[in-house]
């Protein structure tokens, strides 16, 4: 039985590099491959009504052909199911007129783009392209002026009236806001126009601003050349050092190499050259004075230095980035990188802890302030959080820095409690804020089909429900606390109960510190350490309400030599701890040798089974699919706890064998050891002797298992 599953990614796989401050356009109901179309539809929505679905707008603006639109234009009084058409035919004929002109323009331009087209060929439209250009410039409709400008420039470009295109650009289009969609759509025509007017440099600059590398190469007479991403960046930087293409491309390039810094060996050479080239470009751009964003270039150079393993240089460069003038967006990215670099370079002393508290407080504020519905939804579904997939930058960064950098260093420095506190915050802060968990169950019908049901819980409800807990027993905090031993678990529990510093309190408040959860872990750790008295104490502190929520259940009797199924019940760890503790006390108090031998045999049987077929007593999961992320991968059969348990069981069995004087007891012990021959020969008249003699027919049966007192006890209950 596998109690937990492991994440696919490690925390250092989170994307940290961040320079591009644009959210992708939402393409709901429109064309996901054309972000401009989505934006345009939303702008049409703003010009008309928020109640008009984007799909309706997209359908009219992008899908229906001219011929069909002309019919609508001619039959305005008809009833239309499309809300956009309904609006523009009834309430805004200016838009109707505009769309007819735009569609006619596109139709003619399409016809003219056909290889079959020759000037003076009939194209079957109501207007000529010349008339379109003229009308687009003459319509006095302020709200549609930018749109008419686009249509005019398209028509003029098609007619080869390039000077007029440039005049319109200079006179009107440049006065539109920089992020105006029509301006963005007009710019390629102006670039093309400048090229046709033999102003190649101007054309290249426009194309560089748009990040149109192929057109840049074409204008430079380098058509067909294959250039790398970094070469393209160099070219754009030369002509348009502040093009948004740069940040977009930097982010996509670095994100390609960022996760884990691992790639296939054949890519390594390529990337090493490219990274070096990019690094040089970063320094040139940072110092060159042409870029409005030198902080971005220093930040990128620092990032690449860290990528190459030169942390000191990374620290120096991020220091330079911090000194540059920058946007709030860049400042935040740089702050994150500073926290990361500090975590990697500063000594872990009180001074660092003070700084860390400040840094965590800032990061926590960012987490709180930037949560949106998408983040809430993704967190509630749990999948990405549990699998360390990037989805919410601020929480990702908390996790990446804390889990991948600070915790391993803290553990190495012996600061286990601090590492656990930090890991707990990293794993549970966002969950605590969202406080929602979606659980999908598959239910089977009588016919053998299945259907899904989804339940939504608060985190507390989820943790105390009957649902399998996929988070608390597979997160990084759990991985650490489950593998660092009982003392660490108990120390952590104490730090939760009695915080000693501001940082303790701060971290505890942001982690999941429910006592049932922590006591159960501490108690289980005690069972694994054979500290049964303490196990009784901690497991005994777990509330009745929590006893059924451990994700694992025990199905066999831990005190039976042979596997014997029992009815699973919730308090199995506490019951086991009580009985083992009682046995320990009874063994020490009992003096009669045969009684004592029987008690020892029962104790040893329980001990062996608690690490074998009743492993649920000492573990929360078993198997190898749980990846070691912060700690080493678990090797259940050979870890220190298991070795200690083996040693104690051997010692106790030997002792039992030595002190037993009664034949019945000796026979039972030897029977447990599978020494059937001894049982048959030395204790033929005991219960076990009669059993062996009556049922073993062949010689080999008398030697069913090789007897090795050093290992035999480990085979108890095994199968």
């Amino acid at each position, binding site marked *: 039985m596998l109690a937990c599953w492991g994440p696919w990614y490690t925390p250092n796989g989170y994307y940290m590099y961040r320079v591009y401050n644009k959210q992708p356009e939402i393409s709901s109901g429109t064309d996901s491959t054309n972000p401009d179309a989505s934006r345009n539809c939303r702008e049409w929505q703003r010009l008309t009504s928020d109640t008009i679905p984007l799909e309706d707008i997209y359908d009219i603006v992008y899908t229906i052909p001219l011929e069909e639109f002309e019919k609508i234009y001619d039959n305005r009084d008809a009833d239309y199911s499309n809300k956009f058409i309904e609006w523009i035919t009834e309430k805004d004929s200016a838009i109707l007129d505009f769309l007819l002109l735009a569609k006619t323009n596109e139709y003619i331009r399409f016809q003219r783009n056909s*290889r*079959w087209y*020759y*000037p*003076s*060929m*009939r194209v079957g439209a109501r207007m000529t392209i010349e008339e379109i250009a003229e009308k687009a410039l003459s319509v006095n409709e302020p709200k549609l002026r930018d749109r008419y400008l686009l249509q005019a420039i398209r028509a003029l470009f098609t007619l080869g009236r390039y000077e007029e295109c440039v005049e319109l650009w200079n006179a009107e289009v440049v006065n539109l806001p920089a992020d105006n969609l029509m301006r963005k759509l007009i710019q390629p025509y102006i670039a093309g126009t400048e090229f046709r007017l033999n102003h190649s440099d101007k054309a290249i600059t426009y194309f560089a601003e748009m990040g149109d590398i192929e057109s840049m190469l074409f204008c430079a007479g380098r058509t067909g050349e294959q250039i790398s991403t970094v070469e393209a960046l160099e070219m754009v930087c030369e002509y348009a050092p502040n093009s948004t293409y740069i940040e977009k491309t930097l982010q996509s390039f670095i994100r390609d190499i960022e996760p884990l810094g691992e790639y296939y060996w054949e890519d390594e050479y390529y990337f090493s050259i490219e990274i070096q080239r990019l690094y040089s470009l970063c320094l040139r751009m940072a110092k060159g004075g042409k870029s409005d964003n030198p902080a971005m270039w220093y930040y990128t150079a620092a990032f690449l230095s860290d990528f190459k393993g030169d942390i000191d240089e990374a620290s120096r460069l991020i220091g330079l980035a911090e000194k540059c003038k920058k946007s709030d967006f860049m400042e935040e990215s740089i702050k994150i990188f500073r926290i990361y670099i500090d975590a990697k370079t500063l000594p872990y002393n009180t001074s660092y802890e003070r700084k860390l508290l400040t840094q965590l407080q800032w990061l926590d504020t960012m987490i709180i302030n930037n949560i949106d519905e998408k983040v809430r939804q993704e967190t509630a579904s749990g999948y990405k959080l549990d699998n360390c997939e990037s989805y919410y930058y601020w929480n990702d960064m908390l996790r990446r820095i804390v889990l991948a950098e600070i915790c391993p260093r803290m553990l190495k420095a012996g600061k286990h409690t601090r590492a656990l506190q930090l890991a707990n915050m990293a794993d549970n802060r966002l969950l605590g804020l969202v406080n929602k968990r979606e659980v999908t169950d598959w239910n089977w019908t009588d016919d053998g089909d299945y259907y899904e049901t989804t339940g939504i819980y608060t985190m507390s409800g989820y943790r105390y429900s009957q649902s399998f807990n996929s988070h608390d027993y597979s997160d990084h905090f759990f991985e650490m606390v489950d593998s660092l031993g009982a003392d660490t678990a108990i120390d952590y529990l104490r730090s939760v109960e009695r915080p000693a510093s501001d940082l303790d309190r701060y971290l505890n408040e942001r982690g999941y510190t429910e006592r049932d959860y922590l006591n159960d872990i501490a108690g289980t750790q005690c069972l694994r350490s054979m500290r049964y008295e303490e196990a009784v104490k901690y497991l005994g502190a777990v509330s009745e309400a929590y006893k059924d929520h451990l994700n694992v259940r025990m199905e066999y009797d831990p005190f039976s030599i042979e596997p014997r199924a029992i009815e699973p019940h919730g308090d199995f760890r506490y019951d086991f701890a009580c009985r083992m503790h009682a046995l320990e006390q009874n063994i020490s108090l009992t003096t009669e040798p045969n009684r004592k031998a029987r008690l020892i045999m029962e104790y040893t049987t329980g001990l062996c089974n608690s690490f074998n077929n009743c492993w649920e007593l000492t573990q929360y999961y078993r198997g190898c699919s749980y990846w070691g992320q912060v700690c080493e991968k678990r090797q259940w059969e050979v870890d220190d706890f298991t070795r200690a348990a083996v040693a104690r069981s051997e010692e106790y069995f030997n002792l039992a064998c030595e002190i037993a004087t009664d034949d019945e007891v000796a026979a039972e012990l030897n029977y447990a050891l599978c020494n059937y021959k001894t049982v048959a020969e030395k204790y033929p008249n005991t219960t076990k002797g009669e059993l062996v003699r009556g049922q073993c027919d062949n010689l080999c049966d008398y030697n069913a298992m090789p007897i090795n007192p050093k290992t035999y006890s480990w085979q108890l209950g095994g199968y």
Partner: protein
Amino acid sequence: MKHLPRLLLLIVATMAMTNCGQRSDTPNDGVKQNSSYYWKTTFDISPAEMDFLESHDIKRLYVRMFDVAREQDLLSGTTEIVPIATTKFVSAIPAGIEIVPVTYITIEALRAMNGKEEEFATLIVERLLAMASYNNCGTTKEIQLDCDWTSSTKESYYKLCRAVRKELASSGIELSITIRLHQMQETPPRVDRGVLMLYNTGALKDPSTSNSILHIADVKPYLRPTKYKIPLDYAYPAFGWGVKFDNNKFVAIVSHDEHTVKNNEYIRHERPTAAEITTVKELVEKAFGKPSRGNILYHLDETQLKNYTDDEINQILNYWPIHYMPSGQCARLLGSMVYTQRLLHV
């Protein structure tokens, strides 16, 4: 001898009365005209070519406007049928010259058109007429399709011709086609007229060919007296070239003036002589009759035409043998005879 002037006068008078002895059964009855092809990607007539048109009374030019071919679209990767090598008009159309727009359809394009002939007929007609109109080619009376169709592509070509003719029906523009010698064995498509190409008659790439442009031996097998179903004119070559081979393997067509060869290479220089052409002309006319409207030169290019004398060109183009002249020529000849007679009287 004293009856000679009277005899000549009688002959001339008879010729004049019988319209030089020819009865035409063509739609353009009486329009006997010298013509030439213009087969370049740039229409740019030189002064020498202008003089040539004038001195040889050439009033009709068959101008190649574009080829129709199959090409791969670089963006979509799909293959499409498109016009290529569209002729660029640099010089104006000479005054008084009728232009017949021509398009050459590759066999690959024709194959690909199968089932879509009507669609492409529209495109071809629209584009030819648009080009003619845009470049001030005057009133278009005829357009021409040029295609090396075979029996396997015949059906598609015939459909295309039918569709093109339908497109042209309302405008009164005629459709003509080129006809290669081997196509004479087939029933022609329903078009208004044809031009029999009397050039490129041999196997160009065959090293054993002596002259791929025109060789009497290549033509003769096709010259069985036939009454072809559409009126025919004849196009004769007035050009030459070199065919380069390497180890008897065809390499390229080169200029007739090219003589540089590497090891194992040789150039077969080809240029039919006027005598060869006129011989073929006599044989063709004997087999298929006189051209319905006149003879056509292939093609108007001063660099090629300079290799022929004016007399040779006249011999090729002349519709009339020396004893048959059109009325104007008859009059001129008559005048010359009267003058001769007067001389004789003297």
